[in-house]
């Protein structure tokens, strides 16, 4: 029973089933019709019909990120493939495991500028972890199995399979996963034990230690988050997380000092600047974290644990690099730590925590409250308070609302926070929420959105209705591209060039047109009831939350500045905001 004859499309489906796939996100077209035909008479795989291929990829990302499984996408050739490019790039930047199958014109037409032909493997080479063009049906089963292996191994990422129509229709042999011998591609998962010992020694001697963890912890799996907690508890060190890492360590724990980076807390950024030993776990020192690179944490020794060797020493020189899977390395570190039972400098740690507490007292996330308009921060605070006792998944679009969500919604568990971190793709949130809701039908899934971003993939509202997906879209409607407006205020003399959306739709009517429930709230004292009503509605809901139009997102490390040059919300005047970024800073993004 090792091999069976069937056509290419059936081979693909069988391979997907054997890979444990139960859901795929897709959109049909001429070149993938054989695959759709194979899907017609089967019930092992559910196909979610999106409304635009970009939506399919983001939905698969939300599905993957919230489950730890590989997300699967099927789209047609030409425009189907090009529409998928943004999502693939997004998955590449945020290390999300995906397998995307694109239809292609038949092999004899490739290169002839055939109808709906494009060089899909050429276009997607830089934005996939790997891609394949399958020209022989007998390679197909192996390629699909290999694609899943590559997508989820090492640093995860999107893998694309370009499937010409004639190959999908040709008869060939199916091979089961266990008969496919693994590729030579085998990322290092176990960390170097000498380096681990070295790290433990360095950590034990630290006086002002800091744990800085990122999305790699989430990618490594729930075990890694558990071990991170154990390690943090055991050492008593302060822990900060990147945007992608939120949930890897419980936000409500007192050793958590908030998110780090451009819009991170005062205490997290100053701790990063002043620490003497930094333990970077599955994060990549990107420019949103480091700020001015030559002023980044000048006095610290750095330990970096990452499965991708190319992330190490890319932006920042580290003293102890450890290549390996976070869960393996942390487990080993814990073992070594327990065996050595090092004596820590308790006095120094106490002083360090005292310092951190004084920074914390700054309350860098505070904002001016209002009883007449809903402050966006307040809206997220209330949303959190009213949903925190449920199993809740939050996705976001991109902009101020995304940062406020990261600051004010507190995640205690991994895989519950879905956001486009690396690419910053507006339009990610709604499809990602749909993907997450399909994977977790009983949970509450909310896309915290901006009024501009939500329009980028609004068509997916229709998908939600077709598949009975009761997602909620909570729009912080400030009638501006708030983040753009904030930057124009900071950088460009408050000249608000094209950042005000003059004719926004009536979101309530729009919701109703799609068959959703539409709600609007304008007053702070009505917010709680309205949110409760949204939560209790067993249908998709658009919540148009009218918030203060010109609120800025603070704290903020202006581009080109160091961590200790951060702007706090309370004490900045408009002039300071206007002059916060130097001429050199202005060229940065």
């Amino acid at each position, binding site marked *: 029973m090792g091999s069976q004859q069937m056509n290419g499309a059936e081979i693909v489906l069988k391979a997907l089933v054997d890979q444990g796939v139960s859901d795929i996100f897709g959109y049909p077209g001429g070149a993938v019709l054989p695959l759709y035909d194979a899907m017609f008479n089967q019930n092992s795989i559910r196909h979610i019909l999106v409304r635009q291929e970009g939506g399919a990829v983001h939905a698969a990302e939300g599905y993957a990120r919230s489950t730890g499984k590989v997300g699967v996408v099927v789209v047609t050739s030409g425009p189907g493939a090009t529409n998928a490019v943004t999502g693939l790039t997004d998955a590449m930047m945020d290390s999300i495991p995906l397998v995307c199958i694109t239809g292609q014109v038949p092999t004899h037409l490739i290169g002839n500028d055939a109808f709906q032909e494009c060089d899909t493997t*050429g276009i997607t*080479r830089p934005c996939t972890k790997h891609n394949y063009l399958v020209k022989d049906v007998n390679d197909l089963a192996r390629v699909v199995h290999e694609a899943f292996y*590559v997508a989820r191994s090492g640093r995860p990422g999107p893998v694309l399979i370009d499937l010409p129509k004639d190959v999908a229709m040709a008869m060939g042999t199916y091979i089961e996963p266990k008969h496919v011998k693994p590729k030579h591609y085998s990322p290092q998962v176990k960390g170097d034990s000498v380096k681990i010992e070295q790290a433990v020694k360095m950590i034990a001697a630290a006086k002002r230690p800091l744990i800085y963890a990122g999305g790699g912890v989430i990618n490594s799996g729930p075990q890694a988050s558990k071990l991170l907690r154990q390690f943090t508890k055991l050492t008593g060190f302060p822990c900060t997380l990147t945007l992608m890492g939120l949930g890897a360590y419980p936000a409500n724990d007192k050793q958590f000092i908030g998110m780090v980076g451009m819009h991170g807390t005062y205490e997290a950024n100053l701790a990063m600047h002043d620490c003497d030993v930094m333990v970077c776990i599955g994060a990549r020192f990107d420019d949103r974290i480091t700020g001015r*690179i*030559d002023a980044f944490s*000048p006095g610290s020794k750095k330990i970096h644990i990452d499965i991708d*060797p*190319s992330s190490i020493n*890319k932006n*920042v020189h580290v003293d102890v690099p450890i290549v390996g899977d976070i869960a393996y390395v942390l487990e080993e570190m814990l073992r070594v730590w327990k065996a050595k039972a090092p004596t820590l400098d308790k006095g120094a740690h106490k002083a360090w925590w005292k310092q951190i507490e004084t920074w914390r007292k700054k309350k860098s996330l505070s904002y001016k409250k209002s009883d007449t308009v809903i402050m966006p921060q307040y809206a997220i605070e209330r949303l959190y308070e009213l949903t925190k006792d449920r199993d809740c998944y939050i996705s976001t679009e991109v902009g101020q609302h995304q940062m406020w969500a990261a600051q004010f919604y507190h995640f205690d568990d991994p895989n519950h926070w879905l956001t486009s971190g690396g690419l910053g793709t507006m339009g990610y949130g709604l499809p990602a929420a749909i993907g997450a809701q399909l994977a977790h039908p009983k949970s509450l899934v909310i896309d915290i959105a901006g009024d501009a971003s939500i329009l980028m993939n609004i068509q997916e509202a229709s998908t939600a209705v077709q598949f009975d997906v009761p997602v909620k879209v909570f729009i912080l409607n400030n009638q501006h591209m708030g983040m753009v407006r904030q930057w124009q205020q900071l950088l460009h003399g408050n000249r608000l060039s094209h950042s005000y959306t003059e004719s926004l739709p009536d979101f309530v009517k729009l919701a109703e047109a799609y068959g959703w429930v539409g709600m609007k709230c304008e007053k702070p004292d009505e917010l709680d009831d309205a949110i409760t009503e949204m939560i209790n509605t067993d249908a998709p809901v658009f919540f148009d939350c009218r918030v203060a139009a010109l609120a800025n997102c603070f704290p903020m490390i202006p581009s080109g500045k160091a961590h200790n040059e951060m702007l706090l919300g309370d004490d900045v005047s408009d002039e300071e905001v206007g002059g916060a970024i130097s001429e050199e800073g202005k060229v940065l993004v």
Partner: protein
Amino acid sequence: MLKPKSQSHYVGPAVVQDIVSRTLSVLVDNEPGVLARVIGLFTARGYNIDSLTVTETEHEKHVSRITIVTTGTPAVIQQIKHQLERMVPVHRVLDLTVEGQSMERELALVKVAGKGDKRIEALRMAEIFRANVIDASINHFVFEITGKASKIEQFIQIMTDLGLIEVSRTGIAAIGRGDAAM
């Protein structure tokens, strides 16, 4: 090699590193697109390619060897290695310059036209450089020359004054000394 300008020991504007030249040997699956993948990496990340050669070297295993000569700071060279290594079709990357003990050769075809003294001198120089004549008429020669890139440079330099018409070079092939494979 590191010449920090300030106290900071970070890779970044504060650190000045010397630019070095490195020969990398990259073993890859000979699958469609593999060369585009490697070259795309170099262009996308702004790395230099000074020379590049590629041919399938193990036909049964469909394995090709790509030899790349690149320049950059040691930190950049390290990044290039890691970026190459994480590509799925890449088996191994070896920095032949750092491993030392390696040999590099290049082949060039050099067309020279001329009459009289210049023609005689060209032929004489070719003999000194152990270049072979592989095509000739009463007006021209095509020389085949093999050796280190520097030797070929020098030969071409000399031929420039003696009627050089055109040059075709293979780029560098490199291999480690001794009986071990990479």
